[in-house]
């Protein structure tokens, strides 16, 4: 689940964090979970990882300095006050709750999670604390699949309209 890298220089910790994120994502690619995987050129201190998974292309942005892992505009066509927007925010927030099994919970001591709607799209950010960057990316990838399961279960028409899920 990643690890702490205390007692070292900030630069070294950044490098370790990046390595942990990269290794974790590469691991999913090596296992065939991601059907395609690439690292995009760094922009403004953000490392960008692109991968094909769940029949969709995802872009994960990672900022080593802050430990933030972004899935920006993860879900298009979501307005803040819509039932789906409300449900998604609530679901993401709930993932840190004590009623979630430990192996699925986003431990607030190790990472903060937030879902938000901006410019008509739903985004997710997980911010790894204390250099738990490997843990952060692990939880982030799991969270994305949990969100997709929720959408298939409760908002099938959204998946039909936005992710080409079969209508039947």
């Amino acid at each position, binding site marked *: 689940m990643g690890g702490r890298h205390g007692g070292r220089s900030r630069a070294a910790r950044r490098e370790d964090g990046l390595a942990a994120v990269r290794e974790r994502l590469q691991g*999913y690619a090596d*296992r*065939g*979970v991601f*059907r395609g995987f690439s690292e995009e050129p760094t922009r403004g201190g953000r490392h960008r990882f692109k991968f094909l*998974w*769940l*029949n969709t292309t995802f872009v994960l942005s990672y900022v080593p300095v802050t430990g933030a892992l972004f899935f920006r505009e993860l879900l298009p066509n979501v307005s803040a006050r819509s*039932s789906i927007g409300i449900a998604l925010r609530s679901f993401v927030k709930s993932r840190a709750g004590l009623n979630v*099994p430990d*192996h*699925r919970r986003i431990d607030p001591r190790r990472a903060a999670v937030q879902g938000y709607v901006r410019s008509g799209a739903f985004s997710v950010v997980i911010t790894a604390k204390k250099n738990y960057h490997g843990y952060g990316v*692990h939880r982030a*990838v*799991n969270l994305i*699949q*949990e969100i*997709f*399961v929720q*959408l*298939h*279960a*409760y*908002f*099938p*028409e959204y*998946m*039909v*309209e936005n992710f080409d899920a*079969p*209508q*039947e």
Partner: protein
Amino acid sequence: MKTKKQTSKRASRDTVASRRDFMRQAVLGGAGATAAALGTGATIRAAEEDAKPITIPSEFESAKRAPLPSVDFPMSGAQVFARACKEEGVKGLFCCPGNYDVIHAIANTGIPTYSGRHEGSLCHAADAFCRATGEIAATSGTEGPGFTDMICAISAANSARSPVLVLASNKTIFSEDTEQGIQDQYQQPLTEGIKKYGKRLITPSRTWEYAGYAFRQLRSGVPKPVHIDFPAEIARARFDDPTELEFFYDNTKYRTDAKPHPDPKAVDQAVQMLRDAERPIIVSSNGVFYSKAWDALKRLAERAQIPVVESGAMKGQFPADHELSADAAPMALMSADVVLLVGQYCMPTLGEFAFGPDARYIRIDPDAEDIGRNLPIDLGIVSDERAALEALADAMPRQRHDAWVREVAVARQAFDAENEDYYQTGLGYTEAVHPAVIAKELADFLQNGNIPQDRTTILQGGYGIARYTRRYLRSFRPGQIVNGAYQYGAIGPDVGYTVGVAAAVQNGIGAQADFKGHPIVAVTGDAGFGYTAMELETLSKYRLPAVLIVYNNNAWGTWSGQVNNTVGLPVHLFQENLRYDKLGEALGAYGEYVTQPSEMRPALERAYQVALEESRPSIINVQAKKEFWLRDQYPPGFLGKVEPGVMSYYH
């Protein structure tokens, strides 16, 4: 409160009265007003009252009592092929008239034979029969039109991996390409990609040999349809003695019942993966059913305390009331760390099953060529499912996964609570009958009341309605639930499927042996009902006791996606409040029309009673409204699904 008997009597009177009222209203309203002015109304009323009752021709009873003809050389090609079908254990034939030599020859062997109204529907029936019994069924149609009517059903059977033997006549070899006469059709290219094997028979002396080709395919590996077409030169060929046939010996010589067994190293690796897992899970699918591996499955699950979830074209290999059943625990699936897929022939891509990205996969399948398709594996085991599960159960040490089993139980309770919420919400909608009410009342009647929960075989069809009924109905024994259109997603096979399931239970074939003669229940929607509704007559003439529930929301299931498309919307709509129950009555079935939530349970009870006492089909036309699919107006609206488990039907 009325007694059941009073209710039943009242219903009976209402049925008689309402039939007359219906006819009266038909002639007084709308276009009927013209007829009434012309005096036709009175004629119709009189005709209705004086109409002769619907009867089953005496020939049906005579046929049942008639001794089977003794067939021996000299034999026709059709008789030779029919003998192979009998010796290979084909358990049912579903057909329409056509391909006469072959279907008559098969019927004369004593294989239960059902004829219906549309070749496609009867091919669907054969598919469902396989999925309910685990046995091979044949289907037949005539030459070009009858054969092409079956195409959708063959494809659906192919997706469901059903061992359906598709037979069709095909003019003569001599007249090929001439368009002499009618119905000319070169068949085999049309089933390309939707069959396991196909052959147009052209050499009479090889008829028996090609039956061997067909049954080698049907009886080995992953089942799929086999398509054989019979030019007249084959069906009507005459063989005076066995020397005129090639390879005319019994099936122990032309095929084997041997099954592939797992590599011991692979078993060791699987045991190690399962031992190391904290939250292992088994996915049981088609292959467990067809290899009759449910005892081995249970032994492995209990020995290592591994939860089991089902998927596939039929359900019930693992009982839903077992503490290790994860079938109705959808939100636990993400927690699994090792997934053992057994006989999952129709393989999802990653993400279509709700297992998380860290889950590792072991796949057991008899077909090495399919292992690794769609879903990356950590270990592949090429084996017959029963052989592999037995090997694993023998090799696996006893283990406990108490925390994981508790997590599954919590998820199960949460799912049940959610379904109860939906039901209570549905009860509040009194202007029509909400799908949650239909589903809950049906489950309570069949599985939580006086009827033993494992007794009733269910055809789980429909589109939107199935997203509710799947949540409430459970399977407790192999073959209890046939999973509707499944991966092919055809709209409308359900009444055809109902014929197949009802025939399987009527004859107590295969997995239905212990439930012979009991009523079955089928669910469909109004859109799907339209495709195969005439098979109500088939159900009725064969006295198949099926209770068919039609969810009547006046629309195709696609309606809600077009709600803002004003111009295009009528494409998705029907006339409202159609009386499918009357259609059923006109075809010999018992009809109920349910318009209020409180009427659902009594209607079910009456229909079930008709099935028990008269061995007759019923149709319960349940009036819903299309707006129930709009979440903002009628929560919870149109529901999605999580696979695998009770809700799954794509895979």
